[in-house]
């Protein structure tokens, strides 16, 4: 008997029990489809989070005041006896392979124009923001270079803040009051949206030194550094550490590279996707028990048929192959339909809920297909052995 004949025979049996086969395959379909949908969501979230983290540019290193071991925020961000200064930032910026440095202070203050006022986030920054954070200036220009130490009172508005304060009129050149000081608006940033729950458009950028003065602080909260992408992160980290240790006399700062963060983020998100895949896999497991059950039923139902086949000269191996192929046909049909259904659902989600990040995880789709094959083999093998072991005489008599 040829393989083609076996498959054909199996296929005909499967087709002849239409309802039963449909229900059995349906179990597989649901399992495979849910694995695909869930992993696609997982993969989508993965990609979404990584873009969120790189939307402020890549090749970044952040230096924080205070020595901390964990990623958690140390008390040093709030106040410290060992400040990180603007001068630190300037000298870090002069290091080889560091393209730009940005001393950062974040606070909250009231912004006033003639008529309107609004409480919002104030970012004390340097001229390098557009370069380091990859935000473009929509109108006007950003804070001027080379006046870090003793800057003039200029401000740049986020998109939403500009709209709130000035509505239709142009804010360029206007005077605004931030806290107790007066600033002149130099520019408006383009729309950037939310970044990890923080509205980048409802902010005002002022020079770091001005912010330190306004908030009565000595230390910046963070220094962001953009490095040359062709260099080793480890080497640059070392350079930074050496420089700051020389300036401060000890290691009273923490360095976090974006690289590190992305790597740990990446592995966390991979685990997450795997976890949701496993969650969907539960259904797949149940579906495979379904195939096993139905194959057991099929063998017990067709004992006399098996007897007849044996009587007319079928070998054990042939009976085994016959039942195994039946399970395979069921699981492959279920698997293929499940894959199509899963892809269809994912595409529908993409179409109907554009906000939800979904991305087809082809690796998982292939795995799902291979798993459906495996399930067919595993679920088919025990009943097939049972069928092959039947003694022809007894099988014939069973009716």
């Amino acid at each position, binding site marked *: 008997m040829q393989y083609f004949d076996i498959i054909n025979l199996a296929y005909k049996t499967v087709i002849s029990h239409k309802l039963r086969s449909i229900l059995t395959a349906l179990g597989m379909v649901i399992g495979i489809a849910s694995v695909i949908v869930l992993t696609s969501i997982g993969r989508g979230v993965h990609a979404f989070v990584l873009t969120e983290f790189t939307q402020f540019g890549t090749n970044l290193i952040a230096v924080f005041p205070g020595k901390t071991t964990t990623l958690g925020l140390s008390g040093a961000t709030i106040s410290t006896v060992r400040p990180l200064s603007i001068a630190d930032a300037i000298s870090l910026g002069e290091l080889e392979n560091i393209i730009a440095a940005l001393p950062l202070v974040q606070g909250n203050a009231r912004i006033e124009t003639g008529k309107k006022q609004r409480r919002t986030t104030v970012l004390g920054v340097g001229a390098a923001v557009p370069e380091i954070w990859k935000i473009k200036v929509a109108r006007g220009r950003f804070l001027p270079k080379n006046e870090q130490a003793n800057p003039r009172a200029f401000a740049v508005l986020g998109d939403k803040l500009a709209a709130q304060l000035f509505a239709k009129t142009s804010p360029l050149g206007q005077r605004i009051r931030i806290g107790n000081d007066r600033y002149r608006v130099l520019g408006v940033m383009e729309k950037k949206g939310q970044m990890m729950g*923080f509205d980048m458009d409802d902010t005002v950028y002022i020079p770091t030194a001005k912010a330190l003065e306004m908030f009565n602080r000595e230390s910046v909260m963070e220094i962001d550094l953009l490095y040359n992408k062709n260099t080793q992160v480890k080497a640059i980290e070392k350079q930074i550490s050496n420089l700051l240790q020389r300036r401060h006399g000890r290691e009273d700062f923490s360095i976090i590279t974006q690289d590190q963060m992305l790597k740990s983020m990446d592995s966390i998100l991979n685990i997450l996707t795997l976890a949701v895949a496993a969650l969907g896999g539960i259904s797949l497991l149940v579906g495979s028990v379904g195939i096993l059950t139905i194959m057991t039923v099929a063998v017990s139902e067709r004992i006399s048929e098996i007897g007849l086949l044996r009587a007319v000269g079928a070998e054990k191996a042939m009976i085994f192959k016959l039942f195994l192929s039946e399970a395979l046909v069921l699981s492959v049909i279920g698997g293929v339909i499940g894959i199509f259904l899963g892809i269809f659902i994912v595409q529908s989600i993409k179409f109907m809920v554009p906000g939800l990040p979904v991305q087809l995880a082809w690796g998982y789709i292939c795995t799902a297909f291979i798993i459906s094959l495996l399930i067919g083999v595993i679920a088919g093998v025990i009943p097939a052995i049972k069928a092959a072991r039947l003694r022809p005489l007894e099988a014939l008599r069973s009716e």
Partner: protein
Amino acid sequence: MMVRDTLSFSWTAIKTQPLRVILIVLAMSIGITSVTILTALGESARLYIVNEFQALGTNLIIVLPGRTETTGGQPPLFGATPRDLTLADANALYRSHHIAAIAPISVGAAPVSIRGLEREVTILGSTSALRRVRHLSLSKGHFLPEMDIDRTLSICVIGQTIKDELFARQQAVGQWLRINDRRFRVIGVLASEGQSIGVDFDDMVIVPVASAQALFNTQSLFRILVETKSKEGMYKAVDDIRELIKLRHEGEDDVTLITQDSVVNTFDEILVALTLTVASIASISLAVAGILVMNVMWVSVTQRTAEIGLLKALGATQRQILWLFLTEAAMVSIAGALSGLLLGKVILLILQVSYPEFPLYLPMWAVFSALAVALLTALIFGVLPARQAAKMNAVTALNKR
């Protein structure tokens, strides 16, 4: 026909197909096990976090300097503001009679050293009220004494980790240590809080708030913790605080108030939603198990056609036959649910033994809903085959071999 007879009839029918039934029970119990475990994990996480938040204090309000008008954004948790919260602001809050205690907080990092051992430590400045507000307990000595809020005093209370690292086995209370360039006397050691969300009090030195401000050369407070007299007084206290601060800040409303309630509720809601999502994804597997029940019931109806015909000839009504098959489906499903619950319970027990610090518990409602869902699955998926059996033509059924 009596219920008992229906049950025993179905039972004998089930007994003839042990393998088939074991497989359905297996399928059902995989679904139920995963749903129970996931619900238990979610519920336990929820309880754990809610408890942790509640352990932070009772009727707590947190006053932060600054306020953003962005809707849906974060409160300005770590930012600075031009007009700070000051000790005088904190003191003024006592004028509200809904308030029971006030703990101003000032935070920073500074190197702490003793006999050459040095370490960068988070320094927290506060008052004696902190102990009450944050439910702190001491393992040795005393907490900060009651005194004027703006008095500096060179005393400190240290966390357990600090004690272990700087003093090892020695007595710590009564010793002097150096924070940056000032000397402080240790008057107490905090009892270890173990794993806790939020601030790690084990790795911290607590000094009088005025001393902390002097240390960091600042007038501002990081935040003010307020405990109200009653839960009901919470919202009145919030209004009072706003009014009092506004009065002191030239009519400007520039603080953010976070009530413990709202934080707990937010987390509660998020975790409930998460648990429900995960549990419902897992319960897709129950639907798959349900389909299997339907499939096997269908097989069984076909195989037992002659029997159905006989029962009809002997005077069984449609309803009786319907219930015979539904009972069969229900029995199998319930067996699946029970073994699933048992397996879930065992796995939870193993998890509990491996992670004793995270209390796991399986809510009663989850147990009951597992059973209910299994029963419902059986009825929903069993009803089509059972109806087919009930509607069968007696004569054709009898003649079928």
